[in-house]
């Protein structure tokens, strides 16, 4: 693809350079600490699942049990491994016993850490291998049922009831959707655990549970086989349980995960220290599982103006990219967020939209951009909304996007109805087909409005990134540099879940993943 925008490569290099400095600034913090969520993830990887009699998930039960007595500075692996060795039971059985107060891990005599490492590591290796098999199964299935052509049609289901979701998802996939995202019930990201089992009562979305993942995966596998087109499944791995959901997704063969380095901090007021640690491990799991992440830059534009804050979106994409690479994600796995949110009343707004959309694909040529539809400026005028979605689709096909989250004509009214989604698929198919090669056929006028706009956005992003690099990301967030939202390093939810690693901290999975991912 020729550079249609004549962008200054040097500006891009400066952005990448600043992003590295930003990541360097936060890396020590990430490595020196663990979190309750990470330890619950370790518990899950060791095989713990289910809930106790009060419905509390067993990973929480076991982690809280350990935390209460000795803190989590050594991680859960040590006590759990010891118990396995001592009792001969598997991790899940041990968790059940602990939950029933039939067992305390602290009443058992202790092996030395090295012994445990040596003897229990195979269980961890086994767990990792089984995730690998799932990843391989995806590869096989995608060879057998190749995914559709890009831009992929990405639609959401959000009925609150997994069984209705399944029906809606199957219908959408048959109509031509390539990707189904199950939206989570409102505020699930604030839960410091993952709900359990099939659920039928959510608001604005359906709870992310492993059973719900499984039900949807099975349904979509059926449709994949039927249509000969592998249908991808998406859920959300952000919030206080992000690494846990990552591992659940890896187990149930999700294909994409919403996962952003800063989303929880900015938009859910989750503690930043906590989030930076959790995102690192969760992304490692995503990376290993062959999952494509979707970052959340679109969210900036729901509260900020898309013209004024365009450069913040771009700056955040650079940061997300750098942090993702450090977790072992490949460029192809980094679905950067972008959104069509310019006020429709602005003269030449469409030119600005395509300028930025083109800019992003130019700067991140190997990363699939996840392009979000108009939401903020949608109104009850469903006809106009349908048309705005059409321009959005056109912008995508004109600028070579990859992942197209389809807009709903009823965006301002309700979560999508069955036919809203069908109409959105019809919209995208029509536009994509009817303007299939438009991107090959147009060039932008030299130094015209489009090129100038791209240049402005990039230049402003450089300045922002260099400023952030200088003061550090935590400080920058505190100063409200992102989306005009200010958060303090100690504020927000989940701070208590951050635990300083002790010298004998051990988490076999970090090493296994690092090795595999070559980081």
């Amino acid at each position, binding site marked *: 693809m020729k550079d249609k925008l004549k962008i200054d490569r040097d500006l891009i290099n400066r952005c990448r350079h600043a992003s590295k400095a930003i990541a360097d600034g936060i890396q020590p913090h990430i490595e020196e600490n663990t979190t309750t969520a990470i330890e619950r993830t370790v518990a899950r990887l060791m095989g713990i699942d289910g809930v106790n009699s009060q419905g509390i998930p067993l990973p929480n039960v076991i982690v809280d049990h350990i935390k209460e007595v000795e803190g989590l500075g050594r991680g859960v692996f040590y006590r759990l491994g010891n118990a396995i060795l001592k009792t001969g039971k598997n991790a899940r059985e041990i968790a059940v016993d602990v939950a029933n107060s039939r067992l305390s891990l602290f009443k058992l005599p202790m092996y030395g850490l090295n012994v445990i490492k040596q003897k229990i590591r195979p269980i961890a290796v086994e767990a990792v291998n089984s995730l690998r098999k799932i990843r391989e199964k995806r590869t096989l299935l995608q060879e057998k049922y190749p995914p559709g052509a890009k831009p992929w049609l990405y639609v959401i289901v959000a009925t609150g009831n997994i069984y209705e979701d399944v*029906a809606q998802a199957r219908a959408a996939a048959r109509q031509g959707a390539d990707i189904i995202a199950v939206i989570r019930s409102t505020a699930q990201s604030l839960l410091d655990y993952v709900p359990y089992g099939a659920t039928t009562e959510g608001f604005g979305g359906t709870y992310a549970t492993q059973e719900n993942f499984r039900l949807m995966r099975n349904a979509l596998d059926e449709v994949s086989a039927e249509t000969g087109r592998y249908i991808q499944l998406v859920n959300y791995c952000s919030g206080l349980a992000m690494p846990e959901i990552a591992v659940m997704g890896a187990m149930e063969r999700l294909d994409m995960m919403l996962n952003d380095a800063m989303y929880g901090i900015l938009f859910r007021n989750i503690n930043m220290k906590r989030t930076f640690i959790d995102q690192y491990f969760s992304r490692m799991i995503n990376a290993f599982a062959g999952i494509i992440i979707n970052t959340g830059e679109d969210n900036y534009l729901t509260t900020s103006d898309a013209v004024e804050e365009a450069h913040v979106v771009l700056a955040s994409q650079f940061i997300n990219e750098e942090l993702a690479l450090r977790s072992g994600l490949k460029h192809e796995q980094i679905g950067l967020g972008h959104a069509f949110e310019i006020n429709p009343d602005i003269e030449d707004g469409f030119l600005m939209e395509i300028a930025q959309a083109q800019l992003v694909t130019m700067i991140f040529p190997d990363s699939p951009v996840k392009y979000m539809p108009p939401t903020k400026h949608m109104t009850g005028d469903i006809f106009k909304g349908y048309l705005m979605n059409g321009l959005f689709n056109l912008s995508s096909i004109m600028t070579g996007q990859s992942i197209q989250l389809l807009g709903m004509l009823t965006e301002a*009214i309700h979560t999508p109805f069955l036919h809203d989604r069908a109409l959105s698929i019809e919209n995208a198919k029509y536009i994509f087909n009817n303007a299939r090669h438009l991107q090959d056929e147009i060039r932008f006028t030299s130094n015209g409005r489009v090129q100038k706009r791209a240049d402005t956005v990039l230049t402003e992003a450089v300045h922002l990134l260099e400023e952030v690099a200088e003061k550090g990301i935590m400080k920058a967030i505190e100063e409200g540099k992102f989306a005009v939202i200010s958060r303090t390093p100690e504020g927000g939810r989940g701070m208590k879940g951050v635990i300083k690693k002790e010298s004998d901290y051990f988490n076999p999975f970090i090493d296994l993943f690092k090795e595999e991912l070559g980081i």
Partner: protein
Amino acid sequence: MKVDRRAVKPYGDTINDGKVQMSFTLPLKAGREAEEAARILADKMGLEEVDIVGMKDLGEGFCFFILYGKLSHSVDVTTIKAAEIDTNTMDYYEINNFIKKEIGRKVTVVGACTGSDAHTVGLDSILNMKGYAGEYGLERYPEFNVYNLGSQVPNEKLIIKAVEIGADAILVSQVVTQKEIHIKNLTEFVELLEAEGLRDRFVLIVGGPRITLELAIELGFDAGFGRGTTPADVASYIVQTIVKRKKK
């Protein structure tokens, strides 16, 4: 998520949620009064939890509304007896063979856009060589004799022609429906035929995008064909109906 066929309701995202979208204009200025009037109308239609999502003044004392609501009515589909074309669609080869075997002579049809209607494209799709959606039209069928009188043909002229050529079937096309002009025109056509005692001589067919089987039957036609009809649908119906009548 089981559908109760005795009480089927519209579906938004939960079974039986009854969700319906509606839009209309009222001859009232935008404002609280108009909004309330829209709500009352929706209420009379049996909508609950009416959500007026769009209200736009159109000037001249008119206001446009977009709304959603939950329909309280339901329908028992187990009792539905939808009129159904009682023949099945065969393909080009099957139809020609059927004529040869079961009728033993060519079938003659005459078609026209009657009254002031000049929309020939629909009728041509059924009758002309070229056909519709990749399917040949009746002129291409070796076993059909086709007379296509074209547009704006008076009812009398069509009947005279049908008698003259000894048509088996008459095909009328009606596309313009404003102010129910098609109903007037089709009714007159059947009355003319009946007055002449010719009604039973022909298989009588009407087609057009706003034509339904129910309407056709109500108006005294044998069948009616709407949007997306193919030549084979029509040819199949004609030949099978001819044979059925012969047997009676």
